[in-house]
């Protein structure tokens, strides 16, 4: 009689397992379809590329931008004939904002959807968690928005197209000095609960010191904060000539707005988190003049960016944000590496494991002309990007139309 409870619980465990097993069989061999299938996506021999980004949770916005870029890439390259006639097919899995969600998405993509490679995940913290899974399974991963230190070092199969902050950040400080050579006092703000902002601010502060400038205060905030009155007045009291903000678009934009409303008139530099047009919806007209160093500029002159930008503009009625461009570039790297590989040995004949390994080697070796400009990879898998940009936000008076204007 004592066994009843144990037996029952064992039954429940079995039931739970069964539940997941059933759903797996239900989904059958047909792998996940994208939510926006391209014309050729139905064909069974399409090459699956995994997209593991956040579509839900509080980082959903970033993930949604990435997915938009990747989908444009899918259509663009399939329209151009795919890989020697074989189309690619994006398999999109939501990672949510959690580490576990990223791992689950990776697992599903690797074993169930049998993808050749993965683009993602959204957050660096998620990458630290999920990338080792791909590494162990020997599946290439391209980070499209992971900029924290140490990501490519996770393993041989991990690379990224998102330039790490250390490279991008200094450009904007130089641009600011070009606009106002008399800058002396600098106030620095950063979001201390955001891994990316935290490492970015380090780079900013080093750059400021290298330029012989004086950091008068470092103010911390959280990405979930909304009110910055205290930090802002603290900084303004010290009369800085330049304020550098490392944060995400919403909190950063809010901070800009409150700084301006409280009477700060000098130059503001925004970090990489400002690289999205959603910044305009936060600070509207008050964003005007903010400098942002970019890994991407919609104004970049090359053929592929022109097409990308036009497509994006047509579809979403606004300039493509950096995360979309980076996701596009990541898909492009896969496509072009697959094409190159296909020329050496027909990829449809390669077993999946070998294809993944070969693909990883190939993609690290190649050079790509992407909407980001020309990129290549270091042996460890970090991106080598030729062009960086400093843009100044230009917003019209009523705050409804904003764009990133290129500084050169």
């Amino acid at each position, binding site marked *: 009689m004592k066994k009843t409870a144990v037996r029952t619980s064992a039954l429940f465990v079995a039931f739970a397992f069964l539940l997941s097993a059933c759903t797996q069989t239900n989904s059958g061999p047909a792998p996940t379809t994208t939510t926006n299938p391209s014309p050729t996506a139905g064909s069974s021999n399409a090459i699956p590329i995994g997209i593991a980004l956040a579509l839900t949770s509080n980082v959903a916005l970033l993930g949604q931008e990435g997915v938009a870029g990747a989908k444009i890439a899918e259509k663009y390259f399939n329209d151009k004939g795919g890989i020697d006639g074989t189309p690619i097919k994006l398999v999109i899995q939501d990672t949510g904002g959690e580490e576990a969600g990223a791992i689950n998405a990776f697992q599903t993509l690797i074993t169930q959807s049998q993808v050749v490679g993965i683009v993602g995940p959204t957050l660096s913290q998620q990458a630290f968690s999920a990338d080792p899974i791909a590494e162990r399974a020997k599946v290439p991963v391209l980070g499209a928005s992971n900029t924290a230190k140490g990501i490519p070092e996770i393993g041989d199969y991990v690379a990224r197209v998102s330039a790490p902050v250390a490279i991008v950040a200094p450009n904007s400080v130089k641009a600011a000095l070009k606009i106002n050579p008399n800058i002396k006092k600098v106030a620095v703000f950063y979001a201390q609960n955001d891994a990316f902002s935290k490492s970015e601010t380090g780079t900013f502060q080093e750059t400021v010191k290298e330029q012989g400038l004086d950091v008068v205060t470092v103010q911390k905030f959280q990405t979930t904060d909304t009110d910055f009155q205290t930090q802002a007045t603290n900084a303004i009291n010290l009369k800085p000539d330049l304020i550098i903000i490392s944060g995400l678009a919403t909190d950063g934009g809010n901070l800009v707005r409150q700084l301006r409303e409280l*009477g700060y008139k000098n130059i503001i530099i925004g970090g990489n988190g400002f690289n999205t047009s959603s910044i305009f919806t936060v600070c509207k007209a008050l964003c005007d003049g903010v400098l942002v160093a970019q890994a991407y500029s919609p104004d970049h002159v090359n053929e592929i960016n022109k097409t990308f930008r036009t497509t994006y503009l047509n579809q979403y009625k606004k300039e493509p944000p950096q995360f979309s461009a980076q996701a596009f570039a990541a898909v492009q790297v896969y496509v072009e590496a697959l094409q190159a590989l296909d020329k050496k040995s027909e990829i449809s004949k390669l077993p999946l494991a070998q294809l993944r390994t070969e693909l990883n080697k190939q993609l690290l070796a190649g050079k790509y002309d992407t909407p980001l400009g020309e990129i290549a990879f270091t042996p460890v898998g970090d991106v080598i990007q030729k062009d960086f940009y400093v843009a100044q936000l230009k917003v019209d008076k009523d705050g409804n139309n904003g764009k990133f204007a290129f500084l050169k």
Partner: protein
Amino acid sequence: MDITLFVQQFLNGLSIGSIYAIFALGYTLIFSILGIINFAHGALFTLGAYFTYALMGEAFGLNGLLANAALPVKLPFALALILGSALAGLVGVAVERIAFRPLRRKRADSLLTVVSSLGVALVIVNLIQYLVGAENYTFPGNTYGNLPAAINFGTAEKPIPIRTVQVVIFGVSVVILTILTYFINRTKYGKAMKAVAEDPITASLLGINTDGFIVLTFFISSFLAGLAGTLVASSVSIPGPYFGIAFGLKGLAVIVLGGLGSIPGAVLGGVVIGLIEAFVPADYSAYKDAFAFGILFIMLLVRPQGLLGRRFVQKV
């Protein structure tokens, strides 16, 4: 401390505190009547802001089901604010019907009600995201007409700027506090509401429709949530569907500090936490939240009824 800086931080504290206070007023109102924490309050706060935004005829983004949708009307801010808050109030009433009343009927453990309210919060937040995406939205720049962006409480040489919208919020919290206090302590219906709070059985014996008052309480509380959400959003934009959730946790600290169920306590608690945060030295600003919650923890151990709350005595 330099006097200008002191005044500046003091006013900053008041302005932060007034945001907490305006959030906490409706939050604590429910507790005072039903003795439960309504975790969905943060979600209704968010919802109010979205309603007002929509009523002003602004368009939504691209990532939800309602991509690019906009209402055909363009209401002025004040009107949209009232209507949007009223809509939030109605949603609050629906929430009461669906998630609270069945549990009350069963005389369920109040902790179950807390969990149910968490479920509601999850539904509302994700429904918003499902419908209009995770984008941030900002009210049009002319929301407050031609008022200056900030008001200087200092001199020209030693400015003490406070953002106008913060002053508005502070004013509105004080007005709401006054109206609520008057309504509850001076009017027949307020007194009836207090009777429902103190002893629903006695209240019903006096001919007071307790269910009706509970619905009314939810409406007022959710109306205030929507109002607060809109005002705060007009100050800091709507950063996304999770907007109110962070306030929910902080609001918890505020109302416990002030005294669960005490309406002046909500304002006092908000102001106290606002001031504490403002006076946390810049070097330790990262620990701001730890201060608030640390104080909450200690407060609970030392004086669980809060600054202005009443002590509950268990009858043996």
